[in-house]
């Protein structure tokens, strides 16, 4: 079991709700993934529109926890106000905090992120900050009270997988008491398995499932990969070696040292 701010979950896969071919496929993919937490966002509603209601009904049918994000926010003020709107709208203190610093890479602004996280924690929020693999930023986030930290593997939607494995390993080693989630940039189930093998508690992804040719089966594949990665981590992976080490016993080899 895994606890996010005191709530227990058995799935280690958090899934986004955007970019699916249809609402029905989104629902089926979420069910197939086994995810118990899904990310959502909030946007302006047009006069007379009921788009938000239709989407929200679909999510409620799934009986999952929702993690609202502050996607698209570029300033501390925007992110804080968006988080407060999300709390009002979804009735949860949880927020996936995004403060974007660069439009090309959607790289988080670490300075704005730490500042916004501090304001929100004081306001009673449970903050899930989306950050880079920078250890110092993660240490600051823990210092101000984040129990969960979510470093990227690679830029959002890039499908590149873990691009800075050493930094993610270091973060895991230095923050053993924090729930660490690899968020963004995962493209294949093997990427998710690698994150879990490194000791990360969970992964959060969206595009890799939503944009697959068959999102429902891809969701299933990620579910198995996450399980495999976690079991492998718990089983204890052997370390790499510089030289070969025979797996077949040498003792008793026929013709061993035979003289020709």
């Amino acid at each position: 079991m895994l606890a996010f701010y005191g709530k227990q979950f058995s799935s280690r896969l958090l899934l986004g709700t955007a970019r699916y071919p249809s609402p029905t496929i989104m629902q089926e993919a979420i069910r197939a993934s086994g995810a118990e937490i899904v990310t959502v966002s909030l946007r302006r509603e047009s006069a007379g529109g009921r788009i938000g209601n239709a989407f929200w009904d679909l999510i409620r049918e799934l009986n999952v926890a929702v993690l609202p994000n502050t996607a698209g926010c570029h300033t501390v003020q925007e992110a804080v106000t968006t988080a407060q709107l999300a709390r009002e709208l979804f009735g949860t203190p949880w927020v996936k905090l995004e403060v974007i610093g660069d439009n090309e890479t959607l790289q988080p602004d670490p300075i704005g992120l730490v500042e916004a996280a501090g304001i929100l924690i004081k306001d009673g929020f449970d903050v899930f900050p989306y950050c880079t693999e920078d250890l110092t930023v993660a240490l600051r986030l823990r210092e101000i009270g984040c129990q969960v930290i979510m470093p990227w593997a690679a830029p959002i939607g890039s499908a590149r997988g873990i691009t800075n494995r050493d930094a993610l390993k270091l973060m895991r080693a230095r923050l053993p008491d924090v729930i660490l989630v690899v968020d963004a940039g995962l493209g294949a189930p093997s990427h998710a398995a690698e994150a879990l093998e490194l000791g990360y508690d969970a992964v959060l992804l969206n595009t890799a499932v939503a944009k697959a040719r068959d999102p429902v089966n891809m969701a299933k594949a990620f579910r198995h990969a996450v399980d495999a990665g976690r079991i492998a981590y718990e089983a204890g992976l052997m370390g790499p070696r510089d030289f070969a080490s025979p797996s077949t016993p040498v003792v008793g080899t026929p013709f061993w040292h035979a003289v020709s």
Partner: protein
Amino acid sequence: MLVMLNGERVEIAARNLTALLSEKDYEHTNLAIAVNQRVVPRTAWSDTTLNSGDQIEIITPRQGG
């Protein structure tokens, strides 16, 4: 009076948020509202007086990653 509603300048007759939701056909919708970048809780909608030039954001759930 003129206000900014979801980024657009519009003329409204309503003098509070509850009346605005009725005027603009937002009733029975799952909403959150901010006025001038301050969130207004649902319980305060009818007591929140609107003024000319107010920036009103009316927000609903959407898909997200």
